[in-house]
């Protein structure tokens, strides 16, 4: 894949319009890498002038901060802000709601002020501007799709409409779960839970949420967060429904259905 890297562009006196913040999941997790590639494929198709930080990108510090390790978070933030400010970054897009939240809300008071947008909003803009054109009959046309709200996109930042608007472009049958929007149930990964075993309880949070998603009868569970994707994919596997229910990111859905 042809992916422009910030250091190379900068050395050639080039300035991209937007930095694509890939995030740790998008960089290393095999499932999330597919989301990254789908998003890059969209960026390439619509001719956005972008770049990634590549090896210079580092964890935002989100899981450390939520777990209580403020020192580690501050160290990561310091390092990332130094790198981004040295490249004079103005605008960032990311496919991870956790990176989005921390870059948008928590970096500014540490000296890192950028315009940060999540790929749900970015994709909606591209669709609205007519830059993304859908195929006549996409793979998901008429299919029943339910959207799972990521906590860090929804309640944390009040972004509920954009991902749904993006899904409308698929010409699919969108159905809502009983808990959706500001009432959406967490997938179980946030607050650094992704990196530890769940505390003991009667069931797992991702199983509970997957049940709610499957109750809609949807064949596709759409998400806009790599961690939600992992949790729900595990939930579907636990139900042994991976043959009939897919968990896909909105970027993957759009990339597969666009011209």
């Amino acid at each position, binding site marked *: 894949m042809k992916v422009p890297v910030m250091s190379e562009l900068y050395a050639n006196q080039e300035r991209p319009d937007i930095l694509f913040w890939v995030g740790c999941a998008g960089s*290393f997790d095999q499932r999330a890498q597919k989301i990254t590639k789908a998003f890059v494929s969209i960026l390439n198709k619509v001719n956005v002038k972008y770049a990634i930080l590549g090896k210079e990108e580092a964890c935002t510090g989100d899981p450390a*901060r939520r*777990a209580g390790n403020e020192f580690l978070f*501050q160290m990561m933030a310091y390092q990332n802000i130094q790198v981004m400010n040295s490249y004079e970054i103005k605008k960032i897009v990311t496919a991870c709601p956790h990176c989005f939240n921390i870059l948008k809300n928590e970096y500014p008071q540490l000296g890192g002020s950028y315009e940060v947008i999540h790929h749900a909003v970015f994709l909606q803009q591209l669709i609205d501007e007519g830059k993304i054109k859908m195929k006549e009959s996409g793979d998901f046309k008429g299919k029943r799709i339910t959207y799972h709200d990521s906590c860090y996109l929804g309640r*944390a930042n009040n972004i509920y409409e954009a991902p749904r608007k993006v899904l409308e472009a698929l010409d699919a049958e969108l159905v809502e779960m009983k808990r959706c929007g500001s009432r959406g*149930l967490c997938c179980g990964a946030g607050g*650094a839970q*992704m990196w530890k075993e769940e505390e003991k309880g009667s069931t797992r949070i991702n199983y509970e949420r997957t049940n709610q998603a499957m109750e809609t009868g949807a064949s596709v569970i759409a998400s806009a967060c790599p961690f939600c994707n992992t949790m729900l994919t595990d939930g579907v596997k636990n139900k042994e429904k991976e043959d009939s229910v897919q968990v896909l990111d909105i970027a993957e859905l759009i990339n597969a259905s666009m011209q």
Partner: protein
Amino acid sequence: MMHIVSQIIFIIAAAAGIGLFAKRIAGIRKNILTGRDADYADQPLRRWKNVLLLAFGQKKMFRNPLVAVLHFFVYAGFIIINIEVLEIVLDGILGTHRLFAPLLGSLYSFLINAFEILAVLVIVSCAVFLIRRNIIKLKRFISKDLDGWPRSDANYILITEIVLMLLFLTMNATDLVLQEKGYGYYAENPTGRFVVSGMLAPLYGSLSEATLVVIERSCWWLHILGILAFMNYLPYSKHLHILLAFPNAYYARLLPKGEMNNMPAVQKEVLYAMQPELAPADAVPPARFGARDVFDLSWRNLLDAYSCTECGRCSAACPATLTGKALSPRKIMMDTRDRVEETGKNIRLNGAFKDDGKTLLHNYITVEELRACTTCNACVEECPVSISPLEIILELRRSLVMEESNAPQEWNAMFSNIENNFAPWQFSPGDRDKWTGETA
């Protein structure tokens, strides 16, 4: 003579009731201010808008419209009917009977009619609430969070409200019967028939005038003494929300829900470690990281704790509570209030806080509870009075990790991965862009 005695008794009772209430409120204010200083004075316009929408308008309650309407009846009923208490107080002090009736004329009838209708709505709503709690047993009301006193507290409040409203209606009904019988000062201050008490009046028609006077006067006295007693019960009960919902809406957090509070002290330490030339010679490290006890929380967190009415909407929405984990955001708030009550008492007794060997962390809120939180903000979103249990959870987590190095082994591994590999997993940082070399 009789009049003067009752006037004196009334004045003493009212003064004592109000005085005790004021003393207790001052004590609570003092307890709240044992919290850390924090600035919530910015953006007054947005804050007043929150008071209007969230407190007066009860916006969050309308997430469940049916319950919101019932709750609104009780709230409106209680506030509006209290205008009538003004007349009771003045009558009590001056030894008059229905002082406003001749002054207001037909407006008086209109007002009392409106109060009576509201009183019926309050009774019906409170009855429905009692049924939801005790017969239908909604999950959030039978949760173990409420075992013991909190569950009784809720029922006492609902029953008291019903009794106060019944006293008001009975008072009016017997007053009407006495007017119609042409008895004494009741006949001298005719008010005419009110809509609800008018229907109740026939029940009392056969009683003697002396009995009617006793009932009417008893209702009058019990109504006002009941209100004074209720007012003094409030600050010891979950019901304090009827007052604190207003300041709590004003001081609500205005930042995006996803934004965690910064720790400038740690920010500076890291900056000085990275750029030692910036460090002042007299830089002192902060005394405490995160919150171990209520004194380390902000005064706003403590105001939250006193504003909590234990409705449990937070816990009903919490993914951890829902899946049987030890965490319940409502319990976080109840524990915080219990602890600040305890430390407040300690300070009153000893002049300053005397170590009692306990802290909010561990003795009230356990590590297992804190570890179960996904920081999803569902509790914050649901709270009708703008409480943030999440802020407390995160501050306690900070203390656990930074002061006690108390983290599960997996989290320690995650920390060291971030520190060494710049990712929470054990991958080589050199492989971060490896995906670019692969096909789509």
